[in-house]
C-alpha cells in the first residue's frame, strides 16, 4: 500500500490555490473529493496537477454509496477509477455510509444499520472497489444522528470485521468519534480503545456544530464549518498515542477560512504528532 506522509494535510479548496502555489508550503499533503474531479477537464484538473507536483494527494470519495442496499453503481466506480488512474493518489478512501438509492443521489452520508445483511453488502462492495482499483482503500467511521432498531452489531466491532474480511485500511475520523459518541450516548475513550489502530492509514479532524435532539439533549452536527474543538484535539492526542504519528487531515468545507487560519490548524496537528514522537523517544 502506498502511504501518505505522517504529516498534517488539508482539504484542498480552490480559493486557497494561489496561496498554496506561491507561498512556502505549511502542510505535507492534500486531500480532494473525488467527485469534484469527474468533469472532462478544466481548471479543477489543472489545479490538481499543480498540487500533485507540490505534495502527495489523497482522493476521498463522497458518493460511492458503499452501504447501498441496491449495490454499487458501476458507472460511478468507473469514474472513480478514472480519477485514481489519472492523478495517482497516495491514498484512496470512502465512507461507511450510503448516499444513492437507485438513480437518486441524496448528497448526504446516510447511516446504515449494523446487521449481518449490511455487513455482507459492505464487504462485497469493498472487495469490488479494491479489485477494480487494484489497490486497498481506507474506510471511514461515520458521524450519525440516528440509530436503527434492527442493529445487532456495535459500530467498532462492525468496522473491525469489515476491515478483517476485506483487508481494507481504516480512516479514523476523530471528530466523527466524538460527534457519534455524544449523539449515540457512547464512551468515546472506549471507542478509541477498541478501534483497530493497526489498520489506521489516515486520521480526519474537523469542527462540529451543536444542536439538540427530540428530548432537548445535545446533538452534534458534523458541519466542517469551524476550527477543531478542544475536546477533539484531546481525543486526537489520545489516538495518536496509540497509532503513532499518521497522516492527519484538517477538514474545513463550509465558511472556509483564509489560508493562514487553515495552516494554523494543520500546525496544531503537527505539534501533537511531534509531542507523541518525543514521548515515544522518552519511553524508549
Amino acid at each position: 500500500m502506498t502511504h501518505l506522509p505522517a504529516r498534517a494535510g488539508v482539504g484542498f479548496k480552490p480559493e486557497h490555490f494561489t496561496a498554496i502555489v506561491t507561498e512556502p508550503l505549511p502542510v505535507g499533503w492534500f486531500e480532494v473529493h473525488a467527485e469534484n474531479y469527474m468533469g472532462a477537464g478544466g481548471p479543477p484538473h489543472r489545479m490538481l496537477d499543480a498540487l500533485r507536483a507540490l505534495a502527495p494527494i489523497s482522493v476521498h470519495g463522497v458518493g460511492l454509496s458503499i452501504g447501498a442496499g441496491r449495490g454499487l453503481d458501476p458507472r460511478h466506480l468507473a469514474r472513480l477509477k478514472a480519477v485514481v488512474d489519472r492523478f495517482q493518489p497516495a491514498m484512496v478512501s470512502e465512507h461507511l455510509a450510503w448516499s444513492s438509492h437507485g438513480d437518486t443521489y441524496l448528497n448526504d452520508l446516510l447511516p446504515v444499520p449494523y446487521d449481518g445483511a449490511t455487513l455482507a453488502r459492505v464487504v462485497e462492495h469493498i472487495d469490488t472497489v479494491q479489485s477494480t482499483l487494484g489497490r486497498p482503500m481506507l474506510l471511514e467511521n461515520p458521524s450519525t444522528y440516528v440509530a436503527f432498531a434492527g442493529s445487532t452489531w456495535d459500530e467498532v466491532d462492525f468496522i473491525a470485521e469489515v476491515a478483517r474480511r476485506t483487508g481494507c485500511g481504516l480512516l479514523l475520523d476523530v471528530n466523527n468519534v466524538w460527534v457519534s459518541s455524544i449523539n449515540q450516548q457512547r464512551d468515546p475513550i472506549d471507542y478509541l480503545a477498541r478501534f483497530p489502530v493497526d489498520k489506521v492509514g489516515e486520521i480526519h479532524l474537523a469542527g462540529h456544530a451543536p444542536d439538540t435532539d427530540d428530548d432537548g439533549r445535545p446533538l452534534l452536527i458534523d458541519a466542517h464549518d469551524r476550527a477543531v474543538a478542544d475536546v477533539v484535539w484531546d481525543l486526537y492526542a489520545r489516538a495518536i498515542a496509540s497509532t503513532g504519528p499518521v497522516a492527519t487531515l484538517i477538514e474545513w468545507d463550509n465558511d472556509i477560512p483564509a489560508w493562514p487560519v487553515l495552516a494554523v490548524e494543520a500546525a496544531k496537528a503537527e505539534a501533537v504528532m511531534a509531542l507523541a514522537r518525543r514521548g515515544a523517544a522518552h519511553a524508549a
Partner: protein
Amino acid sequence: MPHESLENLQAGFTAALLDAGAPAPDGVVDPAGRPAPRRFNVYRNNVVVSLTEALADTYPVVARLVGEDFFRAMARLAALEAPPSSPVLLQWGGDLARFIEQFEPAAMVPYLADVARIEWAYVEAYHAADAEPMPASALAQVPEDRIDDLILLLHPSVRVVASQWPALSIYAANVAGADPNAVAIDFQQGEDVLIARPDWAVDLRQLPVGGAALVAALGRGLRLGTAAAIAGFADPAADLARSIAVLLQAGAFTGFRLADPNQEQTPEGMT
C-alpha cells in the same frame, strides 16, 4: 446476493427524506430505541439544504436577481422535483432554466431563464475538456483554392445562449462585484451569448447577428461556406466576418481541417 431488508429500508428512508410531510421511517430511533423524528430531520435537511446550496453555487446571478429568500425557496422546489441522478454534482442543475420557465412566481422576471442558461453554460465550459485554442493567424495558412473546403473546429468548451432579452448585459450587471445600476440596459435588444473557456478563464461575449446560427452549424461539422449560408438564411443581416472575428478572439476554435472536395457535405465531420 439479495439484501432486500437493507434495500427496503433505504427505499423508505429515501422517500421520507424527499417528503417533508412524511413521518420518519420505522426503525429509525434514538439511542434508547425510541422514535426520533427530530434526529431524522437532520438528514432530511442535509439533503434539501445541500442541494439548494449546490444550485446557489451554480446560479449566483439568478440568486442576485430575485434575492436569496426567493432563490432558495425556488431552488428547493427544483431540487426536490428533480434530485441528482448521479453523485457528480458538477453535472447537476442544468434544468433550472426550464424549471424557471414553468414556475409562475418567477414570471415577473421573464429574462431569468436565459440568465440561468448563461450560468449553466459557464459551469459546463469550466469543466469541459481542455484543448489549445487556435490563434487567428493560423487561418492565414488556409490555401486560397481550398477556402470552399474549410471546416473550423470548435473548442469543446464552446456554448451559445440565444436570448430575446439582453441576457448578457443583465448577467454582467449582476455578477459578484458589479453595480447593477452602473449601466443602462436596453430591454428591446436581444443578445446572443458566446461562452468559451480556451484556457483558465471562462470568456463570455456577445455574438454579432447570425453568430449563434453560425456556431450551431459549425458544431455540426459543416463547411464554413455552408454554415455561413445557414446563418444567412436565419437572418439576412448575419455578419460573417464579425462573427468569425469574435469567435477567434474568444479562442473558440481549436483548429481547422480541409474537407475532401469530392465528398458531399454533411454527415462527414458531424459531431
